[in-house]
């Protein structure tokens, strides 16, 4: 094709002239790539180097750790978001997500509040070995459990269990400190009155702010306890929250508690669009799940072969990512509850158990991708990372 024919197109010469002028006087319209990194880091730094500035005891089994940045600054976050805390304990590099409990009103520090979990690998490490002055790495703020002004309305009911109070604490601090026009009913379940985290502060805030009510529900009350007792049932929810129409229900507790409450919500005909829930971890014992195959025992071990090379041992009862980390293989991760897809890997052969509700994309399921944090081996596996 002769290239010159183009010059005969009407208007060609004018544009050519325009171009030569543009190139002659080209001011740098194009800002350097560095700007992209700078702006991304302003909101979503990959890692933050933190220093523990203070540790407070909240209850006999829960402590608050305050993190200040060891360098740089802390990005803003939505009350309800979490950070993933990276640690190396007993030679194993791993991480766990913790909701930020401090107010998003300021970002001089983030606080997380940790409750002891029996046998908890990371929580024990953070509670027993970390001291003020120590440095740790965390992710930036992540997660989608937060107030969305586009459709959540102004009438909120928070239902928390145990350490599930932490995202709500941040939200309550924000709403009360900023004087937002939102009403909050907090329904907070604990085993005993001694376990109530933030008890004094919550009561004090409820006293000062008419738009906040706090109801503690104790499942194993001591003799003579005169508050609400038992479980968070539909009757109780209705009694405390009153008319439920137009209210948004937020739920944050153990997976077991969340399940129980969802059934109670159903009794009250609360629609899906009026429920927000944050799972605080996967089921404690995965083998008790209804679809778990009876033939596979919890402590059964399987061989996992990686990229056709290394092999390692994994147990049926624990998420695959734990086995990988024990073998020194780090997979990027953040939520560790199957939601964020950061730990996505390819299952080449074998079978895994994935609890209901794990957020794997349709086409990922079809092409054999799984989330390592929410997959439990049921056979020997071949995977690709």
């Amino acid at each position: 094709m002769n290239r010159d024919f183009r010059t005969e197109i009407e208007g060609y010469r004018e544009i050519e002239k325009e171009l030569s002028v543009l190139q002659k006087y080209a001011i740098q319209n194009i800002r350097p790539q560095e700007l992209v990194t700078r702006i991304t880091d302003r909101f979503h730094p990959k890692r933050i180097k933190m220093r523990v500035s203070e540790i407070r005891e909240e209850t006999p089994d829960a402590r608050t750790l305050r993190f200040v940045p060891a360098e740089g600054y802390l990005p803003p976050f939505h009350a309800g978001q979490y950070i993933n805390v990276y640690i190396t304990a007993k030679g194993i590099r791993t991480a766990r997500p913790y909701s930020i409990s401090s107010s998003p009103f300021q970002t001089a520090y983030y606080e997380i509040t940790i409750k002891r979990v029996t046998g908890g690998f990371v929580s024990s490490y953070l509670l027993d070995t970390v001291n003020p002055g120590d440095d740790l790495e965390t992710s930036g703020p992540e997660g989608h459990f937060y107030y969305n002004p586009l459709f959540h309305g102004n009438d909120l009911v928070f239902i928390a269990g145990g350490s599930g109070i932490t995202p709500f604490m941040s939200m309550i601090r924000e709403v009360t400190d900023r004087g937002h026009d939102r009403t909050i009913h907090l329904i907070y379940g604990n085993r005993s009155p001694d376990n109530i985290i933030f008890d004094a502060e919550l009561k004090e805030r409820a006293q000062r702010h008419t738009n906040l009510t706090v109801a503690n529900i104790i499942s194993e009350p001591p003799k003579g306890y005169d508050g609400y007792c038992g479980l968070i049932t539909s009757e109780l929810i209705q009694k405390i929250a009153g008319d439920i129409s137009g209210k948004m229900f937020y739920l944050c507790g153990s997976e077991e508690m969340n399940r129980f409450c969802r059934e109670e919500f159903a009794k009250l005909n609360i629609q899906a669009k009026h429920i927000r829930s944050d799972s605080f971890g996967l089921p404690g014992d995965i083998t008790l799940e209804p679809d778990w195959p009876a033939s596979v025992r919890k402590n059964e071990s399987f061989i996992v072969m990686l990229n056709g090379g290394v092999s390692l041992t994994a147990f049926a009862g624990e998420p695959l990512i734990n086995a990988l980390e024990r073998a020194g293989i780090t997979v990027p991760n953040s939520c560790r509850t199957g939601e964020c897809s950061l730990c996505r890997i390819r299952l080449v052969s074998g079978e895994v158990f994935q609890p209901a509700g794990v957020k794997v994309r349709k086409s990922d399921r079809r092409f054999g991708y799984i989330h390592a944090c929410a997959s439990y081996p049921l056979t020997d596996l071949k995977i690709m990372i």
Partner: protein
Amino acid sequence: MPDYDAIVIGAGNGGLSAAAGLARRGIRTLLCERHNVPGGCATSFIRGRFEFEVALHQLSGLGTPDKPGPLRGLLQQIGVIDQIDFVEEDTLYRTGIPGVFDVTLKADRSEIVHALKEKFPSEKKAIENFIGLVWEFCHQLISIYYFRDQHASKDRYPLYFKYALKTGGQVLDEFFEDPCLKMAIASYWGYVGLPPSRISFSDLAMLLWAYTEFKPYHMKGGSQALSNAIVDSFLKAGGNVRFNCGVKKIIVSGGKAVGVITEYGDEIRARSVISNASTISTYTDLIDPETVSPAMLKKLASRTLGPSAVSVYCGLDCEPGDLGIEVSTRFISLNTDMDRQFALCRTFDSPEMCGLTCYDVADPEFSPAGACQVVLISLQYADHWYQIPPMQYADTKYRFAKGLLDIAELVHPGFKDSIEEVEVSTPLTHLRYLGHPGGSFYGFDQYAKDSNLFVSPLSPVQGLYSAGAWVGMGGFQPALESGAAAAKAVCRYLEE
């Protein structure tokens, strides 16, 4: 001996089609993607019970099996055509101004003419003439460029030579009086990112013609299904892929690209490199700018970044029909001033034009039973987003999104009450996930001066090729095509 014959940086549409094209020709290829999933724009994310389509509103260029478009052959060649369930849409779009006019254009030439004549009877003749011009113009353009007529000349192709470099607006003005009619015809302008007064007539005409002739499509499982299928084909052909693996540098030695350094500091050697990163990133960051000739940098500096967008991804707890949503794609404007709508892309003022896409109209299985997914979109440049203090970002984002929801509510009352999930993306979101300056997903702005009549893809160093929206035009089809072209070019280079 280098580790690979070729390394592809980035698994967007361009990178994916390049990688699959190479591996299927037996070339040892490594694909490196920063993110944990493939696709770039062509991806999805999950909130609640919805899997949201990020980018694809209407796939162009596929064509039907008996009247295939260019994309069908391409997808065949990279081995994925049978791996995807395509969903054909019979309508281009519904467009209008609430209370002023409302017209639906089917993906059929005579139906377009019919619908427009019915709405705008006083300009019947002009409508026929204009649509006739668009079709004849596009046939001429195809003969020249796709069938490479060796004897292309002004005499053979008078319409092309007369109209190609005019703006869409100039031609619309030549034919029509009614501003509503002009808007009805030019509603696709957002797909290129420039209003009629600035888009070239070539681009505007091709949009209308190609979407009509080859039909708009969508895919089951969304565009992530395409991205996953291409990776699968690539792996089956022996390719290697690394996710969570950003490339920090392209190694240049003796004026040739000979490998990459990853964000972890690993050095991987190869005989050639294809970059699906933005041209800006490739030329000013991945290779040392000193390697690039001053003339080339000047050329780069004369171009401008294309738009990004704010998208409001809505999961609704009702069927599309319950809200009166009857077409997949709808453009809603508040006035006929498209220049003003475009100017608003640089401000936080409430948008006056909104695209509304509902995937469940053509594919009722797209969302869970009894639910549907709607994406509202408005083009936005990024600069003003750079200026907001981080603490005010969320408020700004939600205020803007509310403007779009208000428009949706205006034409589909009850919309807001049906919301079960909402996520909002902004230019900063696209910037973060794609790594592109300005969060631009169309690459550079597409004025006539930016078309391939004036810009030829040059490479600053031997063995380095580019693929994706930044090479030519934005969009799925152009990005996939540029990847296929890059793969061919690399093959020739490696043979030499």
